[in-house]
């Protein structure tokens, strides 16, 4: 191809650029604005009275005020969580009844009826089916409440205000103010939060947002937090206050996550990702009354079902693995037993135990199945009776029964607190890791994003365990 004329054009443009000087960009921008002003003058008529704008401004004055902004934010978060926790209880137990107590025995009977060998029956029904059933029973109800509530807030126009409130803190840590938006998305799903970082122009600040997104407690981890808080934190206060105490503990963990996000953003921007904070314009859109039913419908279809589907895709093979490691024996003991006993002393150092660590290894694909795996492995090790047979994932009838099993497995308040901390501070799930790689195209930054939270989690749980044992 003959590139000569094109080279000439580029050369000419270089010459001309020298002639017209530095102000070209500004002059052009001014020209565009002058044109826009002329056009608007000819065709837009604005009446003096602008009541709506004034109402919007009034709401903004309260929501983004220095004194009320933060308390209101936490209050809204608390209400959303409260509705999610309380509201999800009933449908959850109904689903558990249907899928685990009714359908599971029917499937078992059917399998033995057609003469299915015990290992195939165990692998498919006790492994794969139960993992799926558990994920649906535990995840669907809270998501079906949390996502629509979140979407309603989003449609109303609250999210940019959150960004506005937090902007000052982000600037102080050397990160981009729009990270508040991606952080909020992370509370739903970290993978979605990582994709949302595309709104951040500067590569440096975008990397910070990607690496720290995992500190937003995601949807797969809410149920773990809620269950453990209900069993152990709720139990140390009088019954009348136990609901409040558990919601408070969960919110405390979420806020701790935000705190860690700021700390690590700050550390990153002061060390490996040094640079100037870039300025940006953030439009506060007008408040729009959400179209209620439409929002509910689309958030159920788009967000809830898609996230649920993803969880199921990952849970099915994980269920199979759990069944396999607890049913394949080496030297008279199952693989799971050997894994647990080899990790037990390390777990003790962290105020956790071998069961929890094995559960986190097995559950890398999906955080949602951590709790059922822990229960199943605990039963296996302690040999207590309860739930189903060996290596079967199950859901116990009540929170009390779950608590009994865990206490029999040697759990204390420290184990519970550290499990909640570790659930906040550990590697992102495999989907998020893959998404981080796709967005950064860098093995280095993907590894940093994966390992940084685990290392922090190990340090934090270790310190808490040592101090706890000194004090109590």
């Amino acid at each position: 191809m003959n590139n000569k004329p094109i080279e000439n054009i580029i050369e000419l443009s270089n010459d001309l650029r020298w002639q017209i000087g530095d102000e070209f960009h500004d002059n052009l921008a001014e020209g565009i604005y002058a044109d826009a002003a002329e056009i608007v003058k000819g065709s837009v008529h604005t009446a003096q009275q602008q009541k709506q704008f004034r109402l919007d401004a009034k709401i903004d004055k309260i929501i983004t005020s220095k004194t009320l902004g933060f308390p209101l934010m936490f209050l809204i978060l608390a209400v959303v969580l409260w509705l999610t926790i309380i509201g999800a209880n009933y449908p959850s137990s109904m689903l558990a009844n249907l899928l685990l107590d009714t359908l599971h025995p029917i499937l078992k009977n059917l399998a033995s009826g057609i003469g299915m060998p015990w290992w195939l029956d165990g692998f498919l029904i006790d492994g794969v089916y139960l993992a799926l059933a558990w994920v649906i029973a535990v995840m669907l109800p809270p998501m079906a409440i949390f996502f629509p509530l979140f979407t309603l807030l989003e449609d109303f126009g609250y999210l940019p205000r959150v960004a506005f409130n937090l902007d000052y803190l982000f600037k102080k840590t050397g990160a981009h103010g729009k990270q508040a938006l991606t952080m909020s998305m992370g509370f739903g799903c970290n993978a979605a939060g990582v994709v949302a970082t595309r709104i951040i122009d500067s590569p440096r600040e975008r990397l910070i947002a990607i690496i720290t997104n995992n500190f937003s407690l995601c949807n797969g981890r809410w149920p773990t937090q809620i269950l453990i808080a209900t069993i152990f934190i709720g139990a140390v206060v009088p019954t009348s206050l136990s609901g409040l105490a558990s919601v408070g503990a969960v919110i405390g963990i979420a806020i701790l996550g935000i705190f860690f996000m700021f700390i690590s953003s700050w550390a990153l921007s002061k060390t490996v990702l040094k640079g100037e904070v870039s300025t940006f314009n953030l439009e506060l859109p007008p408040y729009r009354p959400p179209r209620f039913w439409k929002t509910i419908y689309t958030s159920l279809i788009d967000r809830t079902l898609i996230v649920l589907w993803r969880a199921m895709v990952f849970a099915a093979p994980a269920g199979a693995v759990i069944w396999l490691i607890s049913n394949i024996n080496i030297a008279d003991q199952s693989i799971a037993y050997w894994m647990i006993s080899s990790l037990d002393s390390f777990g003790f150092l962290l105020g956790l135990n071998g069961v929890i660590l094995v559960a986190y290894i097995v559950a890398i694909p999906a955080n949602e199945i951590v709790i059922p795996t822990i229960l199943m492995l605990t039963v296996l090790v302690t040999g207590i009776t309860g739930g189903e047979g060996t290596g079967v994932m199950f859901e116990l009838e009540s929170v009390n029964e779950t608590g009994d099993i865990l206490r029999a497995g040697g759990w204390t308040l420290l184990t519970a607190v550290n499990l909640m901390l570790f659930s906040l501070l550990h590697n992102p799930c495999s989907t998020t890791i893959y998404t981080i790689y796709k967005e950064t195209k860098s093995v280095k930054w993907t590894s940093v994003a994966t390992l940084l939270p685990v290392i922090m989690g190990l340090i934090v749980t270790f310190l808490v365990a040592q101090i706890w044992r000194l004090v109590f």
Partner: protein
Amino acid sequence: MDNKVNSACEGCSQYNAKGLKKLGVNTDNIDFVVALAGNPNTGKSTVFNALTGLRQHTGNWPGKTVTRAEGAFEYGTQKYKLVDLPGTYSLLSTSQDEEIARNFILFGKPDVTVIMADACRLERNLNLVLQILEITDKAVLCLNLMDEAKRNNISIDERTLARDLGIPVVPTSARFNEGIPELIKTISEVANGNIICKPHRIKNVPENINKAVKKLSVEIEKEFPTIPNSRWIAFRLLEGDTHIIDALKTGELI
């Protein structure tokens, strides 16, 4: 085109709205490609959903759409592919979402570009509108959120605006499906060449820049006689935009 109008009804967009078939993600055998561009939070995804029957997530914050979504619809007997672009304030910036939008308008060569604008903030939105009109001469301005404009006592003379911009202007309230039939009809008329646009070109440019741009665009047109946006490319070359320089070298722009 021998589309003879038999009665008043057939000429009306409301009647023809029945000819709309939402095709979802099926983008086979497409006759025209339509891009949806505009400032953030002006309702692009809402219009996208209304036309394709898809359910792209919508929200009330700038920066919600960060990827390109594609869908299709059929109107009359023709199939249209619709591309929902991330919102941008300008075509001069560097963030990834804005680059996706810019690259598609420049290199994707859509048959029609629908520019969404917030009727309450028209002056600010025109910054992008005027930039897009430098690139393409087949565009429709969709003046969305007319319901909010009305509530705020803002009235817009669409005819004057259309004359000044040189492209058709369609007022809509996409959230309530108002104006969508008119929008579809206008898109098809521009795509089929029934409406010829004479887009506004930026006028208030200082004389020394104007001279340089003219000199440069003459050279560009000499080399690429069919190029519709030599002036825009001249602007970008003067700015030293390496992306455009590369695109010129590889012939991607033609």
